[in-house]
């Protein structure tokens, strides 16, 4: 699909929201790809981490929300530590999840976690998972 760019497309409320929630300067990113290179889970992602920022620079937030990337991110913060431009991608991922979850939808349903799992999983795993993936 073509991406049609215009000043209207770029001046996007959702993007402003992402910037507000994450506090990250999306436009500092010069697409070096170091985040993708170091991301431990990028192989499971529909689109690689650096592309998330690129699409945000294009104002294409819906293009990102329909991909699994934000849900694969495990918030390990490796990308933010290594970013040469100080763009905290881990916070951008958090902001994207929030944009999705604040529409009153859950990505993970706590009730659907099998009982046996609930018995064996450490609480920190469960709580963290629900914190990240439910509203």
């Amino acid at each position: 699909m073509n991406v049609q760019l215009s000043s209207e497309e770029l001046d996007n409320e959702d993007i402003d929201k992402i910037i507000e929630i994450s506090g990250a300067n999306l436009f500092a990113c010069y697409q070096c790809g170091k985040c993708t290179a170091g991301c431990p889970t990028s192989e499971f992602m529909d689109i690689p981490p650096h592309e998330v920022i690129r699409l945000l620079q294009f104002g294409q937030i819906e293009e990102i929300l329909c991909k699994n990337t934000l849900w694969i991110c495990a918030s390990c913060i490796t990308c933010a530590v290594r970013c040469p431009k100080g763009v905290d991608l881990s916070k951008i991922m958090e902001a994207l999840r929030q944009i999705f979850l604040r529409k009153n939808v859950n990505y993970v349903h706590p009730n659907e976690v099998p009982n046996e799992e609930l018995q064996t999983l450490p609480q920190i795993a469960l709580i963290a998972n629900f914190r990240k993936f439910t509203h």
Partner: protein
Amino acid sequence: MKNPEHMNRIGVFVCHCGINIASIVDIEAVTKEISKYPGVEFIKDYQYMCSEPGQMIFKEACRSGQIDGIVVASCSPTLHETTFRRASIEAGMNPYRVEIANIREQCSWVHHDEEEKATEKAIDIMKSVIERSRRNESLTEVSLQTIKKVLVIGAGISGMQVALNIANSGVETFLLDRQPSIGGRMAQLSETFPTLDCSQCILTPRMVEVGQNKNITLMTYSEVEEVSGYVGNFNVKIRRKAAYVDWDKCTGCGICYQKCPKTVPSEFEQLIGKRKAIYTPFPQAVPNKVVIDNNNCLYFKTGKCRLCEKACPLGAIDFEQKERIEEIEVGAIVVATGYDLYEKEKIEEYKMGYCEDVLDGLTFERLLSSSGPTQGKLVRPSDGTVPKEIVFIQCVGSRDPDNHLPYCSRICCMYTAKHTMLYKHRVPDGQPYVFYMDIRSGGKNYEEFVQRAIEEDNVLYIRGRVARLYREDDKVVVVGADTLSGKTIVIRADMVVLAMAMRPSGGIEELSKKLKIQVDGNGFLSEAHPKLRPVETLTQGVFVAGCAQAPKDITDTVSQAGAAASKVLELLSNEKLLHDPITSWIDEELCAGCGQCVSQCSYNAIQLDEKKRKAFINEILCQGCGACIVTCPSGAAQQKNFTIKQYYSMIESLV
């Protein structure tokens, strides 16, 4: 200083500037009004004062003897002040008695739709300038003798080129380097882009030329200790380090280092080759003299050995030699101290991969060099095998404002392309990979060179940074990204070459303090103006060339060195230096010796006489900026022809 004689006979000229002034400002009204103003001897107007006939009228008035000051009401002084002052000299009048009242840019042009007010304003401007003129002094330009000798600090390609250009023009030049030999970084390189000329082959003839030039005095193995004086008259103390060898006797025959039992890693070989404790950095060294490294010499460490002393047929070894301070006087100084590489130890995320086979660019140069430790055979330092998979990483430490250095090191794109080619020439069945962010190949035949590497030598360029390195078996695993395909790229490499960022060479900060020149936020020397004065510093008489100023390649370095040499020669071409006399002076009766002006002066023109407790201004260095005048709490600092009294009378005429 005496109070200037007040000028009370002032001639005034009003220029119409075609219609530029005359169509807005009522010239007749102005003339009428000003002619009545006290002290105005006469007033004349003319269509174009700057024209030949206009200047004739002007000169006539100067010669008449009727007047002792002139005000020209015309355009901005930046345009024609010089024109009229020059004309006044020709007509026998002191040029500093001519002043310009700007009634064009500051009046007619900005008030084109309010003619009446413009006329009023023109009158006011002229009155205030007449007031100022009354107290003008006749001034003469300051002149000083210059020493026609030059010191060049740093003897890499940049410093060598500066020295040669200056020396070939007949000016005596001292060429200083802290290493035992001249040659600098370029001597370490294997081949150069984009022609693949052998670096040593093009450099050594230059080195010999420098060494044999009668106007060049080599001061290698030396450092700048102290600098005093000012443009045209610098006094420099130079520390000549102890070589423990009498260089007057040493012929560089090399018997001593053949006998020396102590082997250590060679700095010239980037530590992958060896040298002895008594050594020359490389065989083509100029001057071809040996030095003893007393940190490693067995005699200095244990008190025993002295084998070199026994071996030397000329009795040149002198363990008792002491370092000494030599003083020289020069008229100008050029700083060409070059660069170092950013330390690869600072790249934490690559450290897990570090081993002997992860090299920086300069080390790789030594590995490629036919005079290097492997005679140009490309093998892994760890086990001597030929690397079949080799990864080059660009921008390591560069363009990374958050963790390392913000700037682009400018030469890495090109030398990496060169490295890949030289690698392929040695290992035709090997595969080079380059991780890059942008390929910056703006230079004559540079882009074509990179394209050749990609197309003809099958170098695989991968667009992305490398996140980390680690070792696995005897390989170095490179984990990077290719943003064009969106893939994470993993390469099990036999060798990794890091294009480390370029930094100004160590010690630049101390040197800049000694020379009273400035460094920028990244430690490079600041030029006086980035566009128009690229080889000068804000300290007159001190110039910069090469990578000490900013990263650049050999081509640009040589060009800049030529520019610096030409600026030096321009400076020294006159017997005397003339200097605008509009400078500050201190009224000693008022000066309390607080010293505030000293710290405010950007040009180091003010000193505090500790005995008299009075400030003293060196007219040669003073640029007339006025900072000291604003700072002085007692009004002791004054500027010639811009005195406080003159300003007061100007204001009084206006209110």
